[in-house]
């Protein structure tokens, strides 16, 4: 019989993680009371004046609040959809490549951007997308008019979403490739003997085999829906595209850190947390239902 002590060992292994979680995620939660205060640093959280819902009322009186929430949701949803489909399709194509050397090279190239910070990548992007940048030169070469991608509310979200996909798809592909290798090769052999062609093998074996992974990733990413990419947008936006690109995080950064409106910034941040909580709970329910993914 397994002794109780050996189970305790396993529990002990959880301890560092739990401690970190408490230190960095639970303790700071008390800071949200600032959202209901006229926060004065010298007085601290305990002695600052309580103002009730004032910060929230002010937040909703601003013409920006609805815009910011809308931007955050739409950018995040577009990112989730593109971020799921592109690596999926890429992994399927990749799976069909036989040449190992070629495969490795491609894989390295596509996941390289994942390791670069947005500060660097945004510099690259701004150059690529400028009026005399390579993309506009190509457009002109085909007879089009140059486009100012980063100064246009029409294009800005598109740039944000596609550059995010470009940065991350190579890395996300790895998950699918891992899932692909776990599909039993006997199935393919049996299908081949039965006379299934490549496309039929794809639709009948590969895609169903990957579906659980897709659903799992999709539902889990719902919890992330309000993280539309702070660092990326901060480095790429300018006042003209606030209309289409300003998200909760960039707004909180500007008003909280640059303009010293602690109460307001915390109120906006708290709103984000509440919405995120609902979405995480929902996505957990969905994951449990469709992908049989359970923590408890």
């Amino acid at each position, binding site marked *: 019989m397994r002794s109780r002590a050996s189970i305790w060992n396993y529990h002990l292994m959880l301890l560092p993680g739990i401690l970190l979680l408490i230190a960095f995620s639970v303790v700071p939660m008390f800071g949200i009371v600032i959202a209901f205060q006229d926060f004065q640093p*010298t007085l601290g959280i305990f002695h600052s004046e309580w103002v009730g819902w004032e910060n929230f009322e002010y937040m909703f009186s601003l013409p920006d609040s609805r815009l910011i929430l809308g931007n955050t949701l739409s950018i995040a949803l577009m990112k989730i959809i593109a971020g799921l489909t592109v690596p999926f399709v890429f992994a399927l194509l990749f799976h069909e490549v036989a040449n190992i050397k070629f495969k490795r090279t491609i894989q390295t190239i596509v996941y390289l951007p994942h390791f670069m910070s947005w500060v660097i990548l945004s510099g690259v992007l701004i150059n690529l997308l400028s009026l005399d940048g390579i993309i506009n030169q190509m457009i002109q070469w085909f007879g089009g008019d140059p486009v100012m991608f980063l100064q246009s509310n029409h294009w800005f979200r598109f740039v944000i979403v596609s550059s995010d996909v470009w940065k991350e798809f190579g890395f996300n592909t790895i998950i699918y490739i891992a899932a692909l290798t776990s599909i039993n090769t006997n199935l393919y052999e049996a299908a081949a003997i039965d006379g299934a062609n490549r496309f039929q093998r794809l639709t009948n074996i590969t895609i169903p085999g990957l579906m659980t992974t897709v659903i799992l990733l999709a539902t889990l990413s719902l919890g992330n829906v309000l993280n539309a990419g702070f660092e990326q947008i901060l480095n790429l936006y300018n006042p003209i595209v606030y209309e289409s690109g300003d998200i909760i995080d960039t707004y909180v950064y500007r008003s909280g850190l640059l303009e*010293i409106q602690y109460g307001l910034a915390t109120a906006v941040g708290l709103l984000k947390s509440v919405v995120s909580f609902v979405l995480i709970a929902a996505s957990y329910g969905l994951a449990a239902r469709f992908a049989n993914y359970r923590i408890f």
Partner: protein
Amino acid sequence: MRLKKIRVMAVLLSMVMMLGVLAACGSSSKEEKVAAPAGSESTNAGGNEPSAAAKEDDGPFSKYEEPVTVSLGRQGVSGNNLPAGDTLENNKYLKYVEDRLNVKVKYDFSVEDQDAYNQKVTLAISSNSLPDILVVDEQQFKRMAKAGMLADLTEVFDQYASPLIKDYYNSYTGDRVLNTGRIDGKLMALPNTNIDGNYQLLWIRQDWLNKLKLETPRTMDEVKTVIKAFKEQDPDGNGKADTVGLLGDKSVVADGGFFTFDPIFNANHAYPKNWFKDEGGNIFYGSTTPETKQALSELRAMYADGLIDKEFLTRKYEDNAGLVSSGRAGILFAPWFGGWALSDAVKANPEADWVPLAVPLDGDGKRNIVPSTPSGTFMVVNKKAEHPEAALKMLSVEYEGIRLIDPAAQELYKDLGVGWLNYPINVQLDYQDSLARDVPIYEKAIKDKKLDDLPARILPRVKAVLKNNENPKKDIPAYADSLAFYTAASITGAKEIVKVEPVFYGKTEAMLKKGANLEKLENETFLKIITGTSPLEEFDKFVETWKSIGGEEITKEVAEAVESP
């Protein structure tokens, strides 16, 4: 007879007294408590004098008996010219201050980037862990004062600010600079001084004008003609249409800003971001006037015609500077001290010949300007600081060094062009009319070629002007100094200048709370109108929204503040 006798006696007496003083000086010089400016190098071996005497001598330059450590947070300096081995944390300027005052400087943080610095400051405020001395902006200063984090400097200033520093402040009419540091009559911060003449000049490539056979522009229309020619007629002669028009900055208007469009607004009699009183005695905000709308429509047309750099919104300061130094831009707005930035272009291309002009002029041939806000940054001292007076003493000593009053300071980094920002505290102080005050001195020195009786502080600059006149553009730092301090500084005093004085500077309560959102609305609207993203009519909507989300409240507060100062 009797009278004469008394007089002789008096003379004799006074001579004796003077001798006595001298003797006293001589005998006590070894144990000197007060490090007089010139005697800064003398070693302080004292320490056994009664403390009462020390109290008496306690002034701006008195040296601490025991070493005192002061913590600072500061913004770093890019291109600080320090020789290898020396850093912002360890250089001769810090050592100089330390030697004279026995004050050790310890940096809590030092970051170069403006935004990052502001973040550090706000974090320090929010966590209530301030260094002893900080230089902050107005909003941060007001917040800190409101939160009761700051030391009252009223008495410390009286006792420990050197006469020079007091002179600087006194040179501003109506005490208007020092007043910005006062709250309820108490001096809570030491403001910097924005000297006269920080408005934007039009900088233009004279060599390009010559090449395209164009006249020096004066009116707005002439300026537009020049921009158009610079843009379209390939002034650099490389056969490519790669020159951009007028450079821009996304802050649109800014006091003393680089690449901002203030002069175009001013030529339309528009003065955004300032407060005025109309004839009926009502307070109004310059950004909401019909003149501002007019200026915006002019900028909008210029942008649409490609006269303004199409991509100015995605450009940072360095990008614009890059366009200048690579010879792709030949016309821009910048203050007189833009001379330094533009000298870079000359380094890359000696043919580039930048000249500053006080244009565009309005219909009456005037260049209207709004005088700078009295101050923009504030030195504050933490309430918990052990030696609040150290800040004033350090500043006093610093300015003896910066202005080269102390001969010892003249030897520090001699001729290396190490900027004054490397001194521990970065508060810029000068006489209100310091530019105008010096220009005649340069002119006289150039005419007479005599440097003998010039004040020490101005000597290096006069030398730079002379050096550059002899051998133009050979020595780039000398060229830069000459371009800024002499050429551009004399333009700032042009006879076309008309000052339009605002009625209110500073920040009211509601501005602190709602100002940021209002500014965002204003900036966003202006940029959208200029770039054609929104129609011009958006301006009227902006005025409405501005009023409803706090503008009206702020206007009332400003009116009250103006009525009862």
